[in-house]
């Protein structure tokens, strides 16, 4: 698990803690907000609202229940839902039935989590997973392109998946 600086109960009620939490988690929260809202302006609004709500409810944060990161993501999730609702009641968007295909939020969170894990992977591992899994290319072809034996591509797939598991665990994912 990622060790966080703030770990006492009510640890987000002071402005200083908010600054620390912002430094540690704003990048991820913003990344997910952009991913799910599809708009950088709305994403900024969502991240701002998340930290303000977290500060207001700071006394209720209890590290025994979950990490600060998990708590912030739970708040952001609610903020994104609220923003989505606000957008839906704006005239012209809900009418006409041409609502853009929006991913359900939990799927978006899962997708974002996996994409973030992929970003944190080493280049070699990410490359073989992209080529063999996402692009569906034969191992021999990928091996030739990389100038390594086919067995090396297979073992990189294995070590890549292992590394991915470690990264996901660090991010708080549990299966």
């Amino acid at each position, binding site marked *: 698990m990622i060790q966080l600086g703030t770990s*006492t109960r009510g640890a987000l*009620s002071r402005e200083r803690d908010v600054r620390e939490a912002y430094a540690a988690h*704003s990048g991820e929260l913003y990344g997910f907000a952009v991913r799910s809202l599809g708009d950088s302006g709305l994403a900024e609004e969502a991240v701002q609202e998340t930290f303000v709500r977290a500060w207001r409810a700071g006394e209720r944060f209890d590290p025994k229940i979950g990490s600060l990161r998990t708590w912030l993501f739970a708040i952001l999730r609610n903020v994104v839902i609220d923003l989505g609702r606000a957008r839906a009641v704006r005239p012209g968007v809900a009418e006409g039935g041409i609502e853009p295909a929006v991913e359900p939020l939990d799927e978006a969170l899962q*997708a974002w989590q996996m994409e973030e894990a*992929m970003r944190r992977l080493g280049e070699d591992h990410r490359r073989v997973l992209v080529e063999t899994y996402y*692009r569906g290319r034969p191992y021999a072809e990928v091996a030739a392109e990389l100038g390594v034996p086919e067995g090396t591509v297979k*073992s990189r*797939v*294995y070590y890549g998946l292992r590394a991915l598991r470690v990264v996901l665990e660090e991010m708080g994912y549990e299966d």
Partner: protein
Amino acid sequence: MKTRNECREWRELLGAYALGHLEGDERAGLEAHLEGCPGCREELAALAPVARMLPHADPARFGPAPQPPPELGQRIAATIAAEKERTQQRRRRRLFGGLAFGGVAAAAATAVLLLFVLGGGSGSTEPAQQVRFANLPEGISIDATLEPHSYGTEIHMYVHGVPSGTLCKVWLRGPRGASYPAGTFRYRWGDDSDAVLSSALDLSRTRAVVVDTGKRTFTAPVSSPVAALDIANEEEPT
């Protein structure tokens, strides 16, 4: 009995197998090995959930993640500071409202209001200042925020990491090294609230904040917003 090397060779195929990419002899061989090897079965079980999550991701988004604009953090801090200020104002108004009912209290409130009016010139337009205590021992953190007022300086002290119950004494230091007491407070473990203290020394004339925790004394410099005040030989408050 499997040798460790044999296991490793099979094990390195587990990734491709978990993705459904293994075929023919390799696949049959690995499956035969798995039947007799609990260690490799366990390893496969650890990889399976990761393999199942792969389809959720969009490989077009594996590039660098968008970063929040640099000013967002400051905007959030400003929003929170403004909301805090509003809450404190409401609290003050409630306090003043309550006082107005008693005759003596009303007189006191008037006196305070007069002070606000008369003391208007003493630098109350300066912004609050964050003070950093550097070189603290491991595990101890001290922060102070100084707010200018007509009566002097309001000090919000935050101490963390000293033994619970520690008596902390606070002073402000003036331009010529004179100390102005700002009061005392006790640090209680688990209480993360700021201690609010005050001193008669104007913030514009405050050069340092000193905290004495009994065992040690910590000093943090206050950056002087108007350096010229050092030369002006003003009368110091007593």
